[in-house]
């Protein structure tokens, strides 16, 4: 193993007069977007700023124009959920010509976005296993079922929220929060719940919609969806149904892994065999 140090350029140390860590810790715990910006090479190495949407930047990298340009770029990185290293001139120069005769300031933008969200419709056995695996992957997990006896905190202590509700009102009130990183898993097996949950989910920007059920159930469900006007290929293509990858999962835990694997593969654009794209029995 080898190692080397960056040349420790002559550094004038900035005194950071604002305490960044408490604010950083608070926003992170509240799942609010925030970024820590640190000079990792060049003048003022170690200088830091804390950037968050809708608030003034805290701290300084040592030059007001540099601060302004970096803060602007960082907001973009937060929105994209990206962590990156960027290069600037000491006064915020960014064009190659402007950077020719200046020392380079390398800035590490460490962006923290809120965790992705998974909504699980249906408080069934598979739900607890799926919620557990989703928590391991860092999801904020919401379990929703209209049946009060099933949708209890005691059955789903691992979930962040357990809601007694029909799918439609929840999707109407909070569906706009869902984005490409998020997932909806519909495990109800019951057309009364499935159909409105699918309809409502299709109206959102959610990146993954998986629906549980046998191939027979899926075929029947397609008929019911057509009855309520859901028949266009662009909509049906969004449904991963039957839900999960074709890994021969049988137990709730294995099924949870199969579902979460499919979510990862869809997000990364990898071709893992989905049950939807094969035929034959789901269980080995």
């Amino acid at each position, binding site marked *: *193993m080898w*190692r080397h140090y960056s040349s420790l350029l002559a550094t004038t140390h900035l005194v950071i007069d604002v305490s960044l*860590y408490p604010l950083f810790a608070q926003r*992170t715990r509240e799942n609010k977007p925030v970024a820590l910006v640190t000079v*990792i090479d060049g003048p003022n190495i170690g200088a830091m700023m804390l950037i968050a949407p809708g608030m003034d930047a805290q701290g300084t990298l040592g030059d007001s124009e540099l601060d302004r340009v970096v803060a602007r770029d960082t907001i973009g990185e937060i929105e994209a959920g990206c*962590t990156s290293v960027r290069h600037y001139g000491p006064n915020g120069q960014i064009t190659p010509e402007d950077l020719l005769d200046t020392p380079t300031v390398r800035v590490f933008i*460490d962006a923290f976005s809120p965790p992705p969200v998974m909504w699980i419709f249906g408080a069934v056995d598979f739900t607890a296993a799926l919620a557990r695996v989703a928590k391991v992957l860092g999801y904020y997990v919401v379990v929703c079922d209209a049946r009060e006896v099933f949708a209890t905190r005691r059955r789903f202590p691992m979930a962040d929220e357990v809601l007694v509700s029909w799918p439609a009102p929840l999707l109407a009130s909070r569906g706009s929060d869902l984005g490409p990183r998020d997932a909806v898993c519909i495990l109800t097996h019951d057309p009364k719940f499935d159909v409105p949950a699918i309809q409502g989910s299709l109206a959102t920007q959610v990146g993954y919609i998986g629906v549980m059920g046998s191939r027979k159930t899926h075929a029947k469900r397609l008929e019911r969806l057509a009855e309520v006007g859901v028949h266009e290929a662009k909509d049906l293509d969004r449904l991963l149904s039957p839900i999960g990858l074709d890994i021969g999962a049988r137990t709730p835990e294995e099924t949870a892994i199969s579902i979460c694997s499919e979510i990862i593969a869809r997000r990364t654009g990898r071709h893992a065999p989905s049950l939807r794209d094969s035929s034959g029995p789901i269980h080995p």
Partner: protein
Amino acid sequence: MRDLLNDIDRWKSEGKRIALARVVDIEGSGPRDPGAAMAVNQDGEVVGSVSGGCVEGAVVAEALGMLNGDNQPRLVTFGYSDDEAFAVGLTCGGIIHLFLQPLTW
């Protein structure tokens, strides 16, 4: 970093000096992405990780050296040849760039 907060808070409340190491860049295949973080206190207690376990020991030594020395933030780069990777049980052969700094902010 989120996972480190509880321990860092506790160390801060105990008045411990803390070093923070964060992955800022990787070349080739690295086990952890940029943003992966590890904190070390003056007593050598550690939370978090910056690799699959291959460079953590060296990072702790660096961190303690910094806390007990010049306290200067710095970039530290770790890499390994395939042979050395094999020697420490690794197969990845990447290069990890870490930024090491005292957590005084």
